[in-house]
Every structure is written in C-alpha cells, then in structure tokens.
C-alpha cells in the first residue's frame, strides 16, 4: 500500500515538475479554442485555446505546493498547541479544549468558506489569505491528536527519568515527547494533505480560492463547467488529477498507519 500510494504521488510530483516542458499555461490562442485532445494538445484546449496539459500540470504545482505548505503549517501550529495543552494541563488545557471543540463542531468546508470570505473581505484576495484561512481551520486535527499522544506519553517512565536527571519541562516536551509522537503524526499529515487538496479545489471551484491567472485544479474545473457538454475534457483532466492525488495520499496514509 505504501508503494502504491507513494508511486501515485511520485508520478504526479514528477509530472508537475515537468510542467514547463508542456509550454505556457496562459498563452491564449483563439484559433484553437475548445479543441478536443489531439497529438498537439494531449488534454485538449479550453475556451481561450490554452493548452490543457500545461494548465493541469501547472495547476498541480500550485495545488501541491499550497496543500503541503498548509499541512506543514497546520502541523506546526497544531502540534505546539496540542502538546502544550496535553503536557501542562490545567487551565491552559481547558481553554484550548473549548476552542478545539468549537472548531470541531462546525463542518470544515463551511468554516473554510466563512474564513476565506471574512479574510478576503478585509484584506482582499490573495494566495496567502487562502493559505492562512485554511491553516486557521486545519490545525485542530493535529492539536487533538498531539494532545492525546502527549497525555499518554507523559505518563511513560522515561519522562519521569528525564525529570530525575534534571531536565527542564520544555526540554522534555521537545526532545522526548514530541519526537515519540512522530509516527502517528506523519500518518495524519499524509491523510491531511489529501484533504487539503480537496479543500483548496473546492474553494477554487467556488471562486474563493487561488485566483486566475494562476492555474489551480479547482478553478480550472470551475471554468470548464459551462462547457461540460461540449468540451468535457476541460473538467475531466483536472478532476482526474484531484481524484488521483487525493487517492494517492490516502492510500499512502493508510499504508503508513498499517505499518506502525
């Protein structure tokens, strides 16, 4: 499973890296608009005659980079908050616990849309705002996992023994506890990247995500929806790549989970 998942992801990554070879994703060519897949344009062209292969691959770069960034940022934030909450307990834990509960009780996509809406209204639309908004809702899962791990790890005897030699609280937290939670964390992160790809694509599809002219899978999918009967390839290929990458990360995550 690890190999299947990893293989799918690797293929997509390599293809995305090769995107520049496929040409410029933004060069308009009205003569060739809406042409079906052919030797010259393997994935066809869109309503402005832009090469779909190039657009999908460039879109993949954006989607993957953004998704991984979001996942890593949320991991850092979530782990820190969860670890502190679990390790020190008391009031800190209560407050953080309430906040997490609030976040957990609202469906993620609704929260995301609301967040992006709020931030965009205030600061205008930009990729950073999207990243920030998604991180804002996404850290909660990491925090919950980390808190649970820390709660059980801090009872372990090696933590007591580290205390006995005079190690400080923060040292113990960062050197002994967090590294020992790494296994489940990596599993969660892998599964989470898949989710985030979906989230970004959904936001893009709703027009709330990354804005044109930067190509992004969800947004390409959206642009193809008016031509779904006449030129289905515009929607099909980004859709396929979204599905494949989400599937890849999920299979990899499950595989890693089964192994640990």
């Amino acid at each position, binding site marked *: 499973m690890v190999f299947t998942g990893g293989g799918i992801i690797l293929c997509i990554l390599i293809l995305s890296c090769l995107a520049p070879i496929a040409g410029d994703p933004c060069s308009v060519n009205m003569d060739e608009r809406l042409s079906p897949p052919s030797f010259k344009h393997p994935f066809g062209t869109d309503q402005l005659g832009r090469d779909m292969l190039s657009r999908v691959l460039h879109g993949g770069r954006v989607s993957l980079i953004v998704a991984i960034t979001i996942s890593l940022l949320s991991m850092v934030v979530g782990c820190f908050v969860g670890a502190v909450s679990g390790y020190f307990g008391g009031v800190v834990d209560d407050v953080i616990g309430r906040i997490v509960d609030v976040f957990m009780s609202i469906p993620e996509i609704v929260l995301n849309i609301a967040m992006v809406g709020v931030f965009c209204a205030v600061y205008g639309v930009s990729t950073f705002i999207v990243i920030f908004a998604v991180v804002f809702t996404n850290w909660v899962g990491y925090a919950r996992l980390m808190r649970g791990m820390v709660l059980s790890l801090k009872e372990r*005897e*090696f933590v007591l*023994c580290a205390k006995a*030699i*005079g190690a400080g609280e923060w040292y113990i937290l960062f050197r002994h506890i967090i*590294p020992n939670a790494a296994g489940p964390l990596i599993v969660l992160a892998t599964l989470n990247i898949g989710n985030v790809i979906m989230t970004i694509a959904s936001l893009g599809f709703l027009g709330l995500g990354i804005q044109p002219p930067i190509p992004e899978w969800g947004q390409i999918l959206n642009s193809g929806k008016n031509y779904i009967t006449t030129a289905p390839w515009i929607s099909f290929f980004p859709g396929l790549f979204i599905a494949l990458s989400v599937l890849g990360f999920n299979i990899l995550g499950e595989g890693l989970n089964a192994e640990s």
Partner: protein
Amino acid sequence: MLMRCVNVSKSFKVGRRRIEVLKGCSIAVDEGETVVLFGESGCGKTTLGRVLLMLVKPDAGRVFFKDTEITAPTREFRKSVQLIPQNPDEALNPRWRIYDSIAEPLRVHGLAETMNEEFDAVAAIAEKAGLKEEHLHRKPSELSGGELQRAVIARALILEPEFVVCDEPTSMLDVSVQAAIVRMLMDIQKRTGVSYLFITHDLELARAIADRMYVMSGGRVTGELRKEELRELSRESLIRCELPRVSARF
C-alpha cells in the same frame, strides 16, 4: 543526615477510590551509607523513593536534603541525587541510542565541554557497568534486559551524585553480573562517599550490602534493623514482615 523524610504520605486516585500508598513514612540516610528498603511487592517502596527525589509530590510531610527542606527541586538538587529506576525497559527514550541516553545528564547540566570529553566520560562509566561500545550504538529495544539495566545504572552514576535511589537495580542481572555491579557500586561509595537507598526483594543481597535496613509493609515503615540485627534475623520472620519494632528512633 544527608537525606531524610518526615511523615510523608501520599495517596493516588485509582478509579473512583483513593488508595493511600504512603501512610506517614519517615526514613533517613546518612552520608556514605547503604540503606536497604525491604518490603512486599506493592507496599510503596518505589513511591517512597520517588518522594525522596521529589519526583512525586507528597500530600503531607517534609523532605530534607542536607538539612534544608526541599519544596521545589533545584537544578543543584537534581544534579546531586539520582534514580536508578525499577523498569529499565521503560526508562530510556525508545528512539534514542543508548549513548545519547547515558550522555544526557552531562548535556542537561552542561558538564562536558567537548564531544571527546563527553565520549570519554560515557565510555568510562559504560565500561565499569560492563557495557561494550557496540551496545552504545543501539536503541533500547535492541539490548537484553540486563544490558539495559546496566545502561540505566551508568546513566545515574555519570554525574557522580551524592545520593542514589537504586530501585531494584539488579533484578534483571544474573548473580555473577549482579555481584560485579554491586561491587562496583560499593567501590564508588568508598571513593566518593555516595549514599544509596537500595530497594530490593533479595534478602541475601540485603544482608551482604546493608549498613541499615528499613522494612516496609502496607505503606508504613514497620521496622529498622542495624547490620548486626539483620545478620541474626531468621528468614521466615522477615519474609512475613513480622518484625519486632526494633529501635524506634522516630
């Protein structure tokens, strides 16, 4: 008195009940002394050892180190008292190499200036404990029980402490290695004057090393024996903890 505790008690919550684990224990250990703590399984020996080191906060009672009361342990205190934990297989970070675990006390207290200095210190103490260099590069799960136990002993001794709680430090060693390790502990004691609180179930071992012995039962210290009394005592009466209240000093 180097280390002493007066009337400490401690209870733990277990399910809905609270169990009283220590019910007013007082013990004292002098400089350069080996004091054995003996008692049935589950009577609170480990907990008492942890209270002395302030790893577990007592509900009541006071702990003194060199006649100053310890409320919040300082770095200096942590450096001079050490613990050899009961379960060596859980006492080391499973992701760290043994070398790093043994060197950790030095790092925490900033005692080794260079890598070479650190390596020499670790190698010296590991050799005394009968560990070879090959063992130092492994993770805890790749050592035998007895090797791990010697690793935690090395880790506790590397700082040259003044007081060590040895919680069944030889439970996983064969008698020959046990004898070698106990000899090593005694040598160190002669050289540096360290005191040991030695928790054990092995009466013969206790007889061989103890300067004094406390007997615990059901969370109370029920007796104190001097070396000579310990020699005379019959095995059976000790096993049942039916001790005459010898020399009630406190």
